[in-house]
């Protein structure tokens, strides 16, 4: 079936964007669920992989041509974001993958839960919630999954700093030793 490709999705929902570099469709936040339901109905019956990717705020330098016709390098600050990535396949037609992305800011990150559409997102979205701190709207049972309930912070975020909770052991590694000494002071 030739319809199972991103072009038909983009034709049906023009507000979705195609990211050529990543080979992914970026879903608009407003109707991600609607698009997912349409995708399921059109044959993408299997959602294989769900994960998050954290991008910190970075300064990119890009070359532009100014009015005078000269190229110059302009620094631009790219805001940090979290992508929630979905890999879809079709079991009936044995095709795939179609990569979907939901983009959200790093502060108060929210995304639309696709668990009501594909049950396979259930545990994986919980994992993204646990490790990246993305709040999934409409998830039936959003709890921490790998870390314990009282845990603070989201360890897969790139700016996460681990707390000092190591058992003291003699070690020749300077970095760990420093940590131990820090721990000793606290104790």
């Amino acid at each position: 079936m030739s319809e199972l490709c991103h072009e038909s999705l983009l034709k049906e929902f023009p507000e979705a964007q195609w990211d050529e570099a990543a080979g992914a469709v970026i879903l608009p936040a407003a109707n991600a669920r609607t698009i997912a339901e349409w995708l399921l109905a059109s044959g993408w019956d299997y959602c294989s992989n769900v994960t998050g990717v954290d991008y910190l705020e970075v300064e990119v330098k890009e070359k532009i041509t100014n009015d005078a016709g000269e190229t110059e390098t302009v620094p631009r600050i790219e805001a940090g974001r979290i992508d929630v990535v979905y890999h879809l396949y079709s079991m009936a037609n044995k095709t795939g993958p179609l990569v979907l992305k939901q983009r959200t800011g790093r502060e108060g990150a929210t995304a639309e839960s696709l668990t009501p559409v594909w049950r396979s997102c259930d545990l994986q979205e919980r994992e993204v919630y646990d490790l990246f701190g993305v709040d999934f709207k409409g998830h039936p049972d959003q709890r921490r999954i790998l870390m314990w309930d009282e845990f603070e912070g989201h360890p897969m975020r790139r700016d996460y700093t681990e707390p000092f909770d190591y058992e003291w052991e003699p070690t020749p590694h300077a970095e760990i030793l420093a940590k131990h000494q820090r721990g000793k002071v606290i104790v």
Partner: protein
Amino acid sequence: MSILGGGIFKGMAVTLRNFIGSYFYKERLTTNDYEWRAKDKLPQSIGDYPKEEGEQLRDTTTVNHYSRNFPMLLHDTGEPMDTIRCVACQICERECPPQCIYIEKSTEKKENADGKPQFYPAKFDIDVSVCMSCQICVEVCPFDAIVMNSQFELSTPNRFGGLLVRRDDLLKSNDYYHKIHPQEAAARDQKMVADKAAKEAKKKAAAEKAKAAAEARAAAAAEAEAKEDTE
């Protein structure tokens, strides 16, 4: 289809066959312990290779060609510290997945086995309580200085100090390496010789090229001079 209990009866027949068979065939034994091997044939971990043909399939304790337990440092024939191959480049320390290697580079250079002045590790510790025997350090080492030992009897009553193996305990001779991993050691030696030859050939070619270039330059200069003279 069949009488009730027939399936269970069939299963019982299988267990009976295995029970009786285990007296005649070793592959029917569910547990192979040390006891059915003669005491003098127990692998002692060092130099206990090769074993008799065909024994390996059943014997899980055989020390084999690729057995890897913990790394060791190689030195060539001679005093260990005079012929150490490690130059403390610290690639293995960086690449080690569980970060169990700790190296301190020497401040001054010392002659190695080839008589070339090189740095050497002032400290080289491996924390074998952390090491996971993955062999990544061996693969990334550009000097063939670190290889895997097959020694596995390392138990010690001292948890922290005893399992931190120091440089001098890690140093083993190339002969020992040949004894425990004959194939791998031979291949490594061959590769080292080939590398050295290639390096020398390259050097020689470069030198010859430089010489030829110098000669050509000299000839050109002489020609130019001669030309000047005639003018």
